[in-house]
């Protein structure tokens, strides 16, 4: 009896999530779940967690640096270096060192080659499986997902060292404007690194959470409306949010997943190469130019001009002085191009710049003075930049991970939207939108289609993403065929195609023929990224996510479920205990106590057995409870009278 009261004392029913089942190591009561937030950035990545004082903080490496360069070096001897160590190798081994891999995520070779960075990269890129680009290195082919997984593994180790044990789960951030293929690739990378992804969260939304924008007072009737302007190393996002009583609701989002500080660097690189009169730089020179370009860009945020001395292959040294105004003239068009997405996002939210309470700057590239001036003019206000723009996304992600793990009570909630319209190819190679952009997620939409030929038994379904009318101008996400349609005259079949977008923003599409009652159902995941089989194979190869982790997770699930059942039984006894004799009550309690003991142990099968036992032992109790309620309804009493 006392032991049962331990689960839930009357009046303060214990919710399942308050029961500690912390990640990985058995779960001692009273502990918080170990979770972290990861900002997987184009140039830098960070990991953050909630400190003992309850505030999010970025976790530093052994030398005290929090930012990990998103660079991975594959040494000739097969070893892998990540971060600063990899960066040091970039000059000597440009073809064995991968940087800015985020820009390759979920991308095909053809579209990358159309861009400057694709055609100028020192890496050997080629077409890989599923239409995704891969990096040729010695005899291997590396997918961008694998490279990203190396960065994530490094951050995982750092977090586990700092938190003192295995992680229960993580939140990984993605640019709000990432399409489905890019999101899927990011999630695959996390799985490959042996991380349980609690949620993919959009970077600007995470930043808003870190800023605690909900605490801002409503002023002049502008009820908590903010813009988040996020210009990182390789991506640009704009999100418009409404904040009200702890709810962060994204009204609209927009951006460019191929625009960022790297492009500013590229402007400087182009200038240097032009001045050196070198059209085809070797990988070493290109790498040197990049490093110089970054230095120039960063210094020009605080000084008016910077000297450059670039050693050229012939032994000459190129000497130039670059002024801030020169730099601004090169990047001017890139910066103003962000204005288009901002205006569109405002329009989609049904707002004007004047109705905003403020604009928040996120991402290292917002340190560039021209960017700050531009944003200030565009939104008619002084941008907020109190927090470190490099860290704010990771801090918000840590906060959200903590919320999702159920560590502590909170009223905060993030509501997000789809960044791009999702649709299907229809006759004439036109894209028909099924889920328009800026639809709140999770969401589901169904659309009916029919056959156009007599006796047609199969139908090709082509899923696309984007705003343009022509399929060729949208991104192709998946193709599959619905087979086994019974032969009918044209137009008689009714094929229902259903789109589901989950809380991570990931799409699943299914199709079914409905007229004949014969059900055919196919579910597909977008073909970009890796198939589940591929990921599993890689996991086995990598041995980073052993059987132990998997068992721990199953044990965890069983415990969560058992706690729920114990909770339910206890609640039922409190409310309807009078339906049982003292002896019957005792029997139920005994079996419940056995289950409770099993939950304390490590045997998942035993938990399952004891749950089944308890289920069996309470069936008659459930029956009596239902009988009484039906009886009451029959005699005209409202169900609520029992409450």
């Amino acid at each position, binding site marked *: 009896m006392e032991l049962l009261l331990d689960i839930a004392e009357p009046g303060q029913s214990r919710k399942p999530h308050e029961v500690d089942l912390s990640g990985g190591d058995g779960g001692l009561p009273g502990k918080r779940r170990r979770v972290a937030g990861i900002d997987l950035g184009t140039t830098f990545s960070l990991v953050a967690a909630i400190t003992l004082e309850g505030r999010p903080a970025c976790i530093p490496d052994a030398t005290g640096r929090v930012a990990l360069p998103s660079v991975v070096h594959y040494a000739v001897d097969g070893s892998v270096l990540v971060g600063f160590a990899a960066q040091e190798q970039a000059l000597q081994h440009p073809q064995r060192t991968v940087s800015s891999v985020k820009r390759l995520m979920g991308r095909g070779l053809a579209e990358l080659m159309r861009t400057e960075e694709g055609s100028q990269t020192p890496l050997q890129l080629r077409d890989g499986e599923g239409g995704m680009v891969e990096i040729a290195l010695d005899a291997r082919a590396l997918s961008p997902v694998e490279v990203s997984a190396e960065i994530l593994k490094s951050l995982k180790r750092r977090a586990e060292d700092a938190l003192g044990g295995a992680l229960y789960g993580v939140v990984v951030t993605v640019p709000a404007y990432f399409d489905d293929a890019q999101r899927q690739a990011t999630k695959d990378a996390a799985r490959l690194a042996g991380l349980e992804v609690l949620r993919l969260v959009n970077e600007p939304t995470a930043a808003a959470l870190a800023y605690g924008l909900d605490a801002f007072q409503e002023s002049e009737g502008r009820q908590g409306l903010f813009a988040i302007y996020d210009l990182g190393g390789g991506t640009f996002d704009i999100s418009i949010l*409404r904040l*009200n009583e702890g709810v962060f609701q994204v009204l609209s989002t927009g951006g460019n997943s191929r625009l960022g500080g790297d492009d500013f660097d590229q402007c400087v690189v182009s200038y240097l190469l032009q001045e050196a009169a070198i059209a085809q730089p070797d990988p070493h020179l290109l790498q040197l130019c990049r490093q110089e370009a970054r230095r120039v860009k960063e210094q020009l945020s605080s000084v008016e001009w910077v000297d450059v001395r670039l050693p050229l292959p012939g032994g000459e040294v190129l000497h130039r002085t670059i002024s801030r105004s020169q730099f601004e003239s090169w990047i001017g068009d890139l910066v103003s191009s962000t204005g*288009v997405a901002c205006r569109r996002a405002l329009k989609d939210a049904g707002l004007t710049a004047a109705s905003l309470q403020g604009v928040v700057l996120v991402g290292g590239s917002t340190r560039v003075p021209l960017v700050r001036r531009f944003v200030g003019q565009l939104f008619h206000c002084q941008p907020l930049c109190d927090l470190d723009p490099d860290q704010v996304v990771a801090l918000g992600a840590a906060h959200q991970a903590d919320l999702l793990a159920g560590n502590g009570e909170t009223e905060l909630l993030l509501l997000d939207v789809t960044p791009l319209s999702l649709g299907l190819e229809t006759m004439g190679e036109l894209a028909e939108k099924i889920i328009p952009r800026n*639809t709140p997620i999770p*969401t589901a939409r169904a659309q009916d289609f029919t056959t156009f030929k007599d006796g047609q038994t199969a139908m090709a379904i082509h899923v696309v993403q984007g705003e343009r009318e022509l399929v060729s101008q949208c991104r192709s996400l998946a193709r599959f065929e619905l087979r086994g349609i019974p032969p009918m005259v044209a137009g008689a079949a009714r094929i229902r195609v259903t789109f589901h977008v989950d809380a991570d923003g990931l799409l699943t599409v299914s199709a079914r023929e409905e007229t004949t009652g014969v059900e055919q159902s196919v579910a597909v995941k977008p073909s970009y990224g890796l198939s589940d089989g591929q990921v599993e194979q890689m996991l086995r190869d990598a041995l980073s996510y052993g059987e132990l982790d998997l068992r721990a997770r199953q044990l965890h699930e069983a415990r*969560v479920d058992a706690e729920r059942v114990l909770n339910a039984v206890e609640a*039922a006894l409190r409310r309807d205990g009078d339906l049982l004799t003292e002896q019957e009550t005792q029997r139920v309690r005994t079996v419940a106590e056995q289950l409770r003991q099993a939950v304390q142990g490590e045997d998942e099968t035993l938990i399952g057995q004891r749950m089944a036992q308890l289920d069996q032992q309470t069936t008659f109790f459930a029956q009596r409870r239902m009988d*009484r*309620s039906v009886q009451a309804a029959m005699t005209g009493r409202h169900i609520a009278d029992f409450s």
Partner: protein
Amino acid sequence: MGAVSRSQSEKGVENLDSAVVAGRSCWSCRGPVGGFAFCPTCQAIQPPDLNLDYFQLFDLPVGFTVIAERLEILYQKLQKLFHPDRYAARGATERRLSLEHVTRLNRAYQTLRDPLLRSEYLLGMLGHPSSSGGQGEPPDPSLLMEVMEQREALEAVDLASRGAVDQLASLRGQAERCLQQDEETLAHLFVRGLSAGDAVVWSQIAQTNHHLRYHRRFMEALEAAEEKIFAGEV
């Protein structure tokens, strides 16, 4: 649980045979759950009640006029109760039920906040479904004339010229007035329809939906032109 879930649940009860409702049991504790969204005994989240229409879901009066602020507040309140983030650390069944609730909630929210979707939904709910997507009854000729004139005016704008922005702004003003007028007409017609609905009113509503749809498409074309200018694609 908040007041919102209670009141909507009670409405659900009224709509159904009380014996059916009384016979519903909680998937978790297997006790009686009635029409409640959360089990009155063990608090477990229950499957969404698909018998609730979107107005009942939000506890709003049935009608075309929806007060936007009220809808937003109720939407956020319901999200706080049902959102998957709240159930991320719970068991698989709870996670799935939360997803079902919120998927439906988002659909309802989008429908009610958009005048055209709202009008179509309400028409269908009241038993007079109009053909959506512009099929079925043809729009009246005066509408087609009007839209053709607007389109011609839009095409006549030289986007590269200096006056283009002003010309588009003037067309936008016209288009916005059309949309506003359509909405006012709908509000008026639905009041009539709901008090003493005759076949004429319903077909007038269906016609007005056509107007709204055409005017929207024109607005989209106008916005595409504006974007071209902003993006410097002219």
